[in-house]
């Protein structure tokens, strides 16, 4: 598996319990920037190997400047499950969001079922050093712009780029049909993100008063928006209309710098691969901060088939800390010290 943060995970599960001496190593083969470039073998940094029950889990990360540049990635692994039993592996990693990536690291038993009791504890033991490595590496990158506090309004005035987020329900198109003029008065370009984006886009395209983008093109425009964006969550817009204050839905603006910081955080701690999910979470945090509620508790837990409740708690806590821009905990620092000592003695 691969994560948007340039992380890789190789998991090997055996039919029988593995000895503590079991070993797994990996390197990465990939092309840089272009599929036509020659393949290169890259070492992974900050590797963490875990052996629990019948699973071997190896985590590693590429240099930050290689993130997003790798193509045709293959993981090349070598395992020694028992003394003298060598096994070579080759895998094409699948890109998944941070929660899926981290949960996979704690899953000892394949399949959708949850782990309880000793299995959950063993899974947590695999996950803990990986979370510590992530926090140590990533927390400094996001500490300067904690997402849990509202960012100031763009200095150049309200951007004319609008983005409708979470436009997932086709029924919402009726509201945007009735309220189209409110968008046309406030923007020149409209990005629509969500499962019903096409239905909503058709309304604005028919009226021909602002340019509209959906899907990957809209996401790309969002990533490359130096002027910033006014983000409007579809359902919050409905609530603003019900309150007879539609203008209040157009007040959450992020300038280009803030957007860039959000994109960085999204790459490290996004709950989904889609950028609009992180943007919607950011807007929600801002709203809650205005109500005097902020911090870890404000992050909406992700509903998915977690390997265990314990893993879910650990991953949520870890992601929430990154979103809050908090420094690594004492526990993380101790974990890191242990990892460094182990690495030195090896």
């Amino acid at each position: 598996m691969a994560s948007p943060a340039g992380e890789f995970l190789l998991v090997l599960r055996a039919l029988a319990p593995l000895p503590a001496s079991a070993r797994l190593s990996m390197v990465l083969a990939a092309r840089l920037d272009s599929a036509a470039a020659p393949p290169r073998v890259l070492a992974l940094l900050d590797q963490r190997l875990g052996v629990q029950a019948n699973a071997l889990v190896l985590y590693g990360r590429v240099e930050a400047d290689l993130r997003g540049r790798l193509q045709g990635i293959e993981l090349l692994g070598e395992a020694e499950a028992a003394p003298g039993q060598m096994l070579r592996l080759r895998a094409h990693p699948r890109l998944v969001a941070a929660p899926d990536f981290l949960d996979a690291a704690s899953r000892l038993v394949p399949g959708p079922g949850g782990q309880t009791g000793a299995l959950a504890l063993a899974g947590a033991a695999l996950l803990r050093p990986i979370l510590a490595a992530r926090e140590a590496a990533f927390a400094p990158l996001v500490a300067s712009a904690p997402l849990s506090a509202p960012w100031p309004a763009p200095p150049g005035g309200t951007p004319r780029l609008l983005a409708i987020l979470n436009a997932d329900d086709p029924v919402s198109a009726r509201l945007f049909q009735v309220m189209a003029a409110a968008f046309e008065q406030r923007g020149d370009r409209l990005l629509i993100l969500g499962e019903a984006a096409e239905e909503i886009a058709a309304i604005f395209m028919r009226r021909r008063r602002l340019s509209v983008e959906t899907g990957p093109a809209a996401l790309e425009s969002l990533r490359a928006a130096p002027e910033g964006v006014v983000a409007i969550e579809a359902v919050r817009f409905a609530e603003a209309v019900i309150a007879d204050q539609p203008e209040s839905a157009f007040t959450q603006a992020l300038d280009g710098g803030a957007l860039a910081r959000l994109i960085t955080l999204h790459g490290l701690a996004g709950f989904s691969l889609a950028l609009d999910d992180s943007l919607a979470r950011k807007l929600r945090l801002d709203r809650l901060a205005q109500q005097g509620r902020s911090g870890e508790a404000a992050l909406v837990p992700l509903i998915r088939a977690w390997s265990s409740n314990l893993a879910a708690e650990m991953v949520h806590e870890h992601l929430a800390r990154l979103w809050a821009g908090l420094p690594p905990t004492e526990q993380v620092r101790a974990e890191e010290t242990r990892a460094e000592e182990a690495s030195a003695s090896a």
Partner: protein
Amino acid sequence: MRDATASALQGGICILSHAHPDFSKGGGEISAYNQFTSLRAAGRRVVMVSASEPATHYATSRPIETILQQSPDEYFYNFAGMTEDRLAWADAQQRRLLVEFLAGLDCAVYHLHHYWRVGTDLIAELMAARPDATFVMTLHEMLAICLHRGQMVMTRSRELCRRETAMRCLSCFPEQTLERFAFRKATLLETLRRFDSLLYPSAFIRDRYEDWGLHGPRAAVLENYLGDATHAAPRPTTRAPGAHSAHFGFFGLPSAFKGLDVLLRALPLALRAKPELILSIHGADRADLLRGFPALEPLIDELGAAVTFAGRYDPADAVALMRGVGWVIVPSIWWENSPVVIQEARHAGTPLIVSDIGGMAEKVLDGVDGLHFRRASGVDLARALVEATDPELQQRIAGTLRPVLGQQAFIAGLEAAYQPHNRAL
């Protein structure tokens, strides 16, 4: 500022209705049509445009024009291009054709009698196309507020619902989402807020819409008008003392919310005290009733000659039929916004017995126009039936029944609503 009323009426009035009495007999479409004929008879330039079920059905199998002219000032449109819930248009081309037609009518007033089968998107486009016109909506029922056919009755328990909240709606429709309720409410609320005037046929329904959040447009209660033809037959000023005081009439279709089952269950209890009591059911025959309420068959057999089924009736005959009974009973278990039956009975000079809620309680003052009983309570209805057989009581209430809205007051109410507004689009 222009001379509002003169401008509005000289420019013509377009009545846009979700249905036409030629094809269905709902209170809203009857009211819209009565308004059309009354304004026309009063010398106003008025055009009626109605959604047509037959044309829509036809459109599913054969090509048909979107707009069909019925007479020089009457048109039908098919709504085959609308979404399944008939609150918006899936076919933008058909919507555009209809908007262009309506905008081209060059009317100064557009008076809508529903948003259902008209579409929030069409309304927004028509308002944008005719910013100079005055837009008026009569809200006959509560579909905007309640997904349960506007009944405001809980889907599972059939308890009355007194206030819309997304969470309450979710308990009635667990397959829906909170987000969808928000989108639905925002769309309908915003559409209705843009009207210049809102007319409500009862204070009850006005209060419901205002509780829901509908404020802004000019609002007035204007009772539905029974029509010139009905008013042409004068209301009797005297009745034979206590005429038919033990003869009760039910008028309407035996749908689940009309409470005919409550009435039939009350009847045996009342018959024990007053064996001479008779119930005539107008609007259904025995088979119609048993299709909806098969469990009532033994009860109907047991009631024997105390119940007669008069079958379907022409609404034009309603007032005359009501004059043949001592009391008209409206036992609905839902709110009823402004039942035409009540006005017809009052115009007929026949006292009423009604459920003590909503539009029924408002339109029938207890002890003045009739008697109230506790909604859905067969025992309390039996008590009212027994009480009503007293000839003196029947005569007294027949003497205090209030008259219904006349043509002059109705047109004056419309003209007040048609005053132009400065509308911000």
